[in-house]
């Protein structure tokens, strides 16, 4: 899923990620579409992050007036470059009539990719929030794709993705870069979701409007005061979300909802939540490889946008079984050892973002078999309590059989993640 919808001018590669042709608007819907657009036109804005030095925009997204006439909602990822460098950037809006002005960041929900901003002057009529209509209903998405001008795009509601960790709405319509943060409306003109991401060919995703409602409620309670200590606030949102996700996995185990698979001689947990999808990636057995490999990879396929190129929330584990019955043990172990590689987690992080990995290695008995096991952790310097964890286990002591498992947790909450690792390990079973 490409979770990036802003149109980035100084980085053509990013801009090209979601370049799609606009879809033809069906004639029968033209009248509804036209009247809807006329209704909301005064409430739609382009939200921009401006470089203070040059006065030029570096990212753009869409936004809409909601809750109060001076409040604008958009995506967190639209304003994230401002959040990560407030000294050099400011926020402003551009209206459909060409007017523009400054915006102040009030509150964010990083987990659901939402941000709420405030203007000094009234901006227009607040759009009402609505419920997700039934599957198949028509929805209308509004925004400013590729900075080409404000547009309205019809599509179909395909319901809330219950199996995914995000619980986003699947919108079958064409969202494009620059429409991020724009509203998607039902036929009554109520906002049912906020445009957030696309995966191409009419596969688009919306954040359910209820999450925006939560932010508006808490803003009202604190009288629309901006959040202080934003990085701690964001870190809490992320760790709380990861902790409750990890806890839900443990609850699933107690309710016997974990699925298992046999990888070689090990029976291991695979589908431990409806949000986790598993794939087989074994090498074909008819190759000339001297060792046989069975490989299964499971992932929650979640990505919470933190900043450019840095996404957290991914929980992924993979099991590799190796067999080399015809090989000398020395030969088998050479190959086995060379197979145990660990892939980098987040290519765009630098030493300024995270500490070096610290690892703990020892031997552990799992279902009667010795496993050389390592847990590594690095911390995010700006987001307290947030870590990346890499867990690596390698079966030792068998002459011609090997088993490697890797667990990656990106943006982990340490304590709850360790509990899940413990539960996963405890569920391994060696079968003769």
């Amino acid at each position, binding site marked *: 899923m490409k979770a990036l919808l802003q149109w980035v001018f100084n980085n053509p590669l990013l801009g090209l990620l979601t370049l799609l042709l606009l879809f033809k608007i069906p004639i029968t819907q033209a009248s509804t579409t036209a009247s809807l657009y006329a209704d909301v036109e005064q409430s739609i804005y382009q939200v921009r992050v401006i470089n203070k030095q040059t006065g030029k925009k570096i990212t753009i997204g869409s936004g809409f007036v909601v809750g109060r006439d001076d409040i604008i909602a958009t995506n967190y990822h639209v304003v994230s470059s401002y959040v990560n460098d407030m000294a050099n950037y400011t926020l402003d809006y551009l209206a459909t009539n060409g007017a523009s002005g400054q915006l102040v960041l009030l509150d964010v929900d990083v987990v659901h990719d939402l941000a709420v901003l405030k203007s000094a002057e009234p901006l227009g009529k607040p759009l009402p929030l609505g419920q997700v209509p039934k599957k198949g209903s028509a929805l209308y998405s509004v925004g400013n794709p590729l900075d080409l001008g404000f547009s309205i795009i019809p599509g179909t509601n395909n319901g809330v993705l219950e199996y995914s960790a995000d619980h986003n709405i699947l919108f079958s319509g064409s969202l494009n870069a620059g429409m991020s943060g724009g509203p998607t409306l039902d036929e009554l003109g109520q906002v049912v979701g906020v445009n957030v991401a696309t995966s191409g060919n009419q596969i688009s995703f919306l954040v359910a409007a209820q999450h925006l409602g939560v932010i508006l409620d808490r803003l009202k309670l604190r009288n629309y005061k901006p959040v202080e200590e934003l990085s701690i606030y964001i870190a809490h949102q992320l760790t709380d979300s990861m902790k409750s996700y990890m806890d839900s996995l443990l609850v699933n185990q107690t309710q016997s909802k974990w699925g298992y698979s046999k990888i070689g001689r090990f029976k291991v947990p695979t589908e431990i939540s409806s949000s986790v999808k598993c794939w087989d990636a074994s090498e074909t057995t008819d190759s000339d490889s001297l060792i046989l490999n069975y490989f299964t990879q499971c992932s929650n396929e979640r990505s919470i946008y933190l900043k450019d190129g840095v996404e957290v929330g991914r929980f992924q584990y993979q099991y590799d079984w190796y067999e080399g019955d015809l090989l000398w043990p020395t030969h088998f172990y050479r190959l086995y050892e060379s197979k145990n590689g660990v892939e980098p987690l987040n290519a765009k992080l630098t030493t300024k973002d995270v500490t070096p*990995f610290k690892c703990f290695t020892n031997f552990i008995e799992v279902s009667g078999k010795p496993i*050389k096991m390592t847990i590594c952790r690095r911390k995010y310097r700006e987001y307290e309590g947030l870590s990346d964890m890499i867990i690596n286990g390698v079966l030792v002591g068998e002459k011609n059989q090997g088993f490697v498992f890797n667990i990656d947790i990106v943006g982990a909450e340490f304590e709850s993640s360790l509990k899940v690792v413990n539960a996963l390990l405890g569920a391994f079973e060696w079968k003769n």
Partner: protein
Amino acid sequence: MEKLILEVQDRSLNQYHTLSDFPVTIGRAFDNDIIISDPSVSAHHLVINKEADGFVVQNLSTENGSQINGKMVYNQQTLPLSIPSQLNIATRSLRVLNSEVPIERTIISACRGLFAVFCRPWGVSTLVLLTVLVVLLENYFNTEYANSMNAYISKVIPSIWFLLAFALLALGISRLVVNRWEVGPSIAIASLFVLAPHVLYEIGHWWSYFLTSDWPRDILLLVNKFVVLPVLLFFFIYRIYNISKKAALGLALLLSAPLLVFQATDIIDSWTVEANSVDELSFNRTVRSWDIRLLPTLSQQDYMQQAHDALADEAKK
């Protein structure tokens, strides 16, 4: 009758002349008493004579002249000659010695005892065979896809090529320096140079797994990069050239310097990359077919507790 010895220095074998009938003429022409067929030497270059109060030397060369105990002479001046003396005529070095100068000890052939392995044909052949076998096995063990025998053999060829090239280099140097074809030792040192990385890798690996730590492997990697070549060269030079240990060490370091500097650059580069990488996972990943190690196998509960303590404490800082 007092006699003198004239040493004409040659890189491979010095020549000695007994001087008893004075005057003695030295030069390139055939009517000299001592003929030195060096093209830089004049036809009649030098005369050594005996006078009442001692020996004298007279330069006859106006072309390249002579250097008598460090003093350059171009005219036909006669100078007193102390014994011993150093005379340089043109580019050739001579020494005038007393006939009673003590004889240096006989150097006994180094090719005996344990060292025979490195110079006798049977020893060298065994060493080369062992090296080729180890390289062949190493290549086979790192092969993931089944292959024909020819393919395995072709992978050994570069190592054999390198072995021969290195041996030829050592052989040529030994011919130049000591004027001998030291075939056995040259091949032996080349074999050892090819064999050493594989042996060190295996030992380092074994120790790393045994201790569940990367340091033995890392240290042996450094040994392989910085110690193996100078040490091998030192032993080769010391045993074959029959020079002092100090001189042999100096020569060995000088000859390996280019490689050592290259390795140092390489290692500094990799440290720089590591220091800036946030994905570097420095934990021991070795596995061995023999599961022999110091660390005991922990229960899951103990492991989790220890991992928690090790990683969570760091988080509180």
